[in-house]
């Protein structure tokens, strides 16, 4: 017994020593910055359900950092990326965050809406500017969220007006919107509801969960409602199912989806033949976009020797880097490379240019999306990233008038 007691006491002493680190060291505001380096964080899902998108974004982030560093860095400092993988698990992310947060100036990537939700309070408390890989305008209530691109609600509004302009939809028509429950789907629905109100559309919305895979019954129901268009704020698998059912049931109406609803892998699935009715609205360009910057990235991607099949995540990840470059330069000019300085610099950034990878971005208005411009693309198996443009960057009138949930607060 006494021996046991002694051992426990020994453990009590040794354990803290082993773990003892800089505990108690004062937190400074210039976290993540030294004379030579700026460290930026990446909280990615490299092993979970969004592995393929998040990996591509991370690769885009890396390509950007390489380019910047080759060109001499920012503010005389090299960019260093500190990457962790949370596997889309909020609990894992919650413990990883305190480990990585003290090392970084900001996050160029934070993937996963449950993760963003779990960390929202921390990000605000630590004043760490973060680019979530999620495009919900609900996130804009967090002043430190720097969303690169437009938001799901606006994508839907732009997309619907595109369809109407092309004659596929008329005022008073019935439309169906299938959305996954969660910030992604709910935000998309917010947009379609707004547009439906403006144009007297009869909106039939169907809430599903991200693990549902067979939408045949849902589409059967929508067919019964006589919808003219199906809107999807879903996962790629669900998009495939809805598209296949659309065709199989003989409904054959146009389908409009947000960017995350499409994955080039669909083109190899049995649903491929049903994808011709699919229109994808996005504020970032597809991998194969016919613009100089995108082509340059595609080349660099090939040269870097990445093994994964490319997707739109790569140019997006690169674009995020470019935006961060702009913000960091601004902060450098202000001579304030602290977290506060970054946040200030972000708000001063009113026209971040990414070489048309994303429309010009304005972070000047708190709570408002940085842009309201989108592309429209369609699936195309022959294009390297699986999609082709059908409509270059544009902004619908309805989108201009739309007020995001946290705008002007």
């Amino acid at each position: 017994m006494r021996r046991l007691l002694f051992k426990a006491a020994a453990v009590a002493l040794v354990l803290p020593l082993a773990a003892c680190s800089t505990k108690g060291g004062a937190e400074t505001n210039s976290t993540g910055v030294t004379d030579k380096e700026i460290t930026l964080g990446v909280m990615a899902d490299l092993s979970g359900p969004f592995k393929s998108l998040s990996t591509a974004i991370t690769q885009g982030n890396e390509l950007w950092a390489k380019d910047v560093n080759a060109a001499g860095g920012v503010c005389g400092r090299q960019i260093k990326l500190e990457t962790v993988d949370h596997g889309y698990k909020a609990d894992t992310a919650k413990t990883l965050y305190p480990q990585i947060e003290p090392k970084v100036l900001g996050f160029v990537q934070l993937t996963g809406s449950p993760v963003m939700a779990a960390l929202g309070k921390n990000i605000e408390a630590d004043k760490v500017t973060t680019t979530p890989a999620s495009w919900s305008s609900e996130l804009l209530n967090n002043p430190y969220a720097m969303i690169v691109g437009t938001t799901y609600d606006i994508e839907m509004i732009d997309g619907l007006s595109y369809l109407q302009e092309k004659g596929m939809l008329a005022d008073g028509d019935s439309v169906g919107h299938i959305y996954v429950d969660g910030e992604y789907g709910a935000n998309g629905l917010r947009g379609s509801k707004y547009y439906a109100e403006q144009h007297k559309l009869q909106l039939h919305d169907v809430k599903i969960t991200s693990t549902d895979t067979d939408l045949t019954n849902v589409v059967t129901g929508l067919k019964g409602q006589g919808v003219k268009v199906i809107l999807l704020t879903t996962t790629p698998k669900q998009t495939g199912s809805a598209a296949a059912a659309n065709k199989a049931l003989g409904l054959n109406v146009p389908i409009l989806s947000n960017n995350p609803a499409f994955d080039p892998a669909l083109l190899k699935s049995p649903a491929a033949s049903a994808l011709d009715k699919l229109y994808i609205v996005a504020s970032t360009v597809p991998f194969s976009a016919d613009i100089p910057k995108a082509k340059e990235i595609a080349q660099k991607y090939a040269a870097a020797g990445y093994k994964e099949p490319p997707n739109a995540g790569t140019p997006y990840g690169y674009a995020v880097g470019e935006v961060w470059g702009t913000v960091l330069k601004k902060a450098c000019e202000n001579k304030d490379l602290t977290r506060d300085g970054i946040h200030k610099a972000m708000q001063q950034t009113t026209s971040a240019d990414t070489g048309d990878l994303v429309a010009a971005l304005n972070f000047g208005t708190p709570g408002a999306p940085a842009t309201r411009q989108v592309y429209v693309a369609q699936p195309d198996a022959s294009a390297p990233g699986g999609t082709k443009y059908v409509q270059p960057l544009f902004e619908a009138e309805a989108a201009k008038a739309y007020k995001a949930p946290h705008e002007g607060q």
Partner: protein
Amino acid sequence: MSKLLWIPVAVVLLALPLYLDASWLKAGQYMMIGAVGAIGLTLLSGQAGQLSLAHGFFLLVGATSYSVLSGTDDDLVGLGLNPLLALIGAVAISALAGVAFAPVAGRVRGIYLGVASLALVFLGLYLGQAAGSLTGGTSTGRAPATFELFGFSFSNEGTLIVAGVPLRGTERLWYLFLILLALSYWLAKGAVGTRIGRSWRAVRDNEAAATAMGVDVRRTKAGVFAVSSAYAGLAGVMIVLWFDILKPDENEFGTYGINTSIAFLAMAIIGGLGSIPGAVAGAVVVYGLPQLLTLYSTDLGWFTGSVTPVLVSSFVYGAAIVLVVLFEPGGLAAIGRRIKELRS
């Protein structure tokens, strides 16, 4: 465990926040959440023999109740109660939810009960999404009130320095969780050793004999469901405080889903069904392993490619269940007992 051994254990647990980084503290707190929930399940499934796969649901009930009782959001239902009252209320509401399931528990036995209880998880998934005014909905969730005890806030607010170490939200939460776990443990121990614990075991081992000795089997089952759900509810409150947010699940594999229910059952089985220290040990294995492996692997660069810490821990706990059933149905608790016997 011997009484003397408690002292160094307590000293270590109390001293840890002075040394460990926030990440490790977070991981430790997560294990404590698991331990509180697992104690509840081991009382139900181990002591009283009622298999339940509904633990995730009761976690959600507790989490939601706390958020609603303490909430002050304008657009959501919130009573703005004192957080301590809200915590007690959440535990009580979870207990009532457990009682509400009693008619089913009274009629359905054994493995059938386990499968029947799965229905609650799916119901919880639906209600979590549908009752957005209570849960905040899956889109944004809702932030819980910061926990306060007699005016002391468990957040970064104010400065509190002990031995040169500033105690911020994470450190403070550690002590809160430690108190809750210690209380849960102590209460469970008290119950198991006395009249109520005997009636649970009697119901588990032989209902006819229990009845003959004057135990009201129906009531006892309802009671133990209530107790177990109360524990799950407390774990639910803790999980909301740990995440800083209540966010109902988007699918059945979320924070309050099937996987959580199975994980809690795994803790109880691995620890040894019915053993309270075993439940704590089981929580360390099932909830601690993925957290610790993730933190270590990030530090040391372990696990590359598709073999992730989370995957490794899943393998470990799957294998642990198989091994326990095959070789040591008493679980870690029985192994512990055996080591103790060998030493004395």
